[in-house]
């Protein structure tokens, strides 16, 4: 029974995505909405990304210093380990899990409210493909802007570690800077960017699907928002396992 429901939901999701990825009625309108969504979903997320990244970077550095303090380990390994954690997991998976909460709930509640207030029906009556009109700009905007957020996150998280070193002197700043430059693998940055593209698609499309299919009133919009965040978080974690295996083999 559960399997049947899951398969049915997945089928519905695929049909929904098929409707979303059709040619927009008017490209000019699409680009206007795309720019609006970049501002709403992307630029508005920068403060959150920066704050979280600085603190996580700082905490990682403190944790590394506490756990890697051994006479057998060089001091610069604090910077090196902080960098690896940030590039390999934090800026792609953890950041997208956090954004699933902010962006996912925003998308699901916005589209869900439009559904229950008949705004989506109004679009359909006018002969507009509502899924394409409402959802495609959101997916396109979030997927294209996520790389900027990831790069911001990388820089500010490493900056957070740097700040801890400056303020507390747990590791000399020059040693930390040496650590984050040592044995640097460019591919780790690329794999974080690639993973984040998949995660951004999952967050925006799953949230849109839950919002678009709301039936009922305000209570159901809230439930859809919660379901969107939970479901996209689970899919991010599942995809993370697969993508990490594929990309770092």
């Amino acid at each position, binding site marked *: 029974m559960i399997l049947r429901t899951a398969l049915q939901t997945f089928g519905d999701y695929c049909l929904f995505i098929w409707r979303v990825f059709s040619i927009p*009625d008017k490209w000019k*309108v699409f680009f206007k909405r795309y720019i609006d969504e970049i501002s709403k979903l992307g630029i508005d997320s920068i403060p959150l990304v920066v704050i979280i990244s600085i603190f996580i970077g700082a905490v990682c550095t403190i944790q590394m210093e506490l756990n890697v303090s051994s006479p057998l380990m060089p001091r610069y390994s604090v910077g090196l380990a902080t960098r690896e954690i940030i590039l390999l997991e934090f800026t792609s998976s953890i950041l997208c899990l956090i954004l699933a909460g902010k962006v996912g709930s925003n998308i699901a509640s916005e589209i869900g409210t439009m559904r229950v207030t*008949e*705004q989506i*029906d*109004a679009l*359909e*009556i*006018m*002969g507009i493909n509502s899924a394409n009109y409402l959802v495609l700009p959101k997916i396109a905007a979030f997927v294209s802007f996520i790389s900027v957020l990831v790069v911001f996150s990388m820089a500010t998280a490493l900056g957070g570690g740097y700040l801890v070193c400056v303020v507390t002197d747990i590791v000399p700043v020059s040693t930390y800077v040496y650590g984050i430059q040592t044995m640097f693998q460019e591919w780790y940055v690329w794999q974080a960017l690639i993973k984040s593209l998949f995660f951004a698609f999952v967050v925006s499309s799953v949230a849109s699907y839950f919002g678009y299919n709301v039936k009922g009133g305000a209570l159901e919009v809230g439930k859809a928002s919660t379901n969107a965040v939970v479901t996209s978080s689970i899919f991010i974690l599942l995809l993370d396992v697969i993508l990490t295996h594929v990309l770092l083999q």
Partner: protein
Amino acid sequence: MIEVKNISKSFDDKQVLKNISAKFYDGKTNLIIGLSGSGKTVLMKSIVGLVSPEEGEILYDGRDITKMDIKQMKELRKEIGMLFQGSALFDSETVLGNVMFPLIMFSSMSNAEMKERAEFCIERVNLKDANNKYPSELSGGMQKRVAIARAIALNPKYLFCDEPNSGLDPKTSILIDELLSDITHEYGITTIINTHDMNSVLGIGENILFVNKGECGWVGTKDEIYDSDNDALNNFVFATRLFMQVKEMHNYNRIAGSKKQ
């Protein structure tokens, strides 16, 4: 003219529409009335194409929408305007933005022409100084008028209104009714109104379809309704003491008038 021929619709095991046939005329206010749960909303959604009936034909000036492909349906939708129960205005757009929306999506007008047309429609529904306001800043009646302005922006041939008076005070309801009636006559639109409001039924009902338990219960005009011996219809329209008195008054005036002659 819109003609509905023998349409039926079921949800799970429950048959909501049973072989309904009706005609809705150009330049007239056509009303669909009935008790809650009688199937009138499903009927309207079927006519608009939001619900697919299992049987029957829905003809828009001879064009059967049940046999149309997506492209043909899309073209037809440009001829349709709809006023929703909750107005369904786009929250993120101003009044002007809402009314310009169908023009932006479907017309080849320049920006200045679109603005001019939208302002004309807003003025037509007697809204002033509201162009830059957002829907949340408007009263229920004003929202309805903006929705009417948006619905007529593309000069539709067919106008559908789902309970246009719900949630409005009696005075505003009459204003909305008059506005819909005027627009229907002025532009020769086929207007179909789904309503519970007896003031509307007796005020602007030029062609009334009474839906009873999913079937066509009665068809007639607002004047014919007083003479109907259909119990279900009488129990619905003249259910309150006020409307019973209206009926008695109407019959009294008619008898008095015929005696004078």
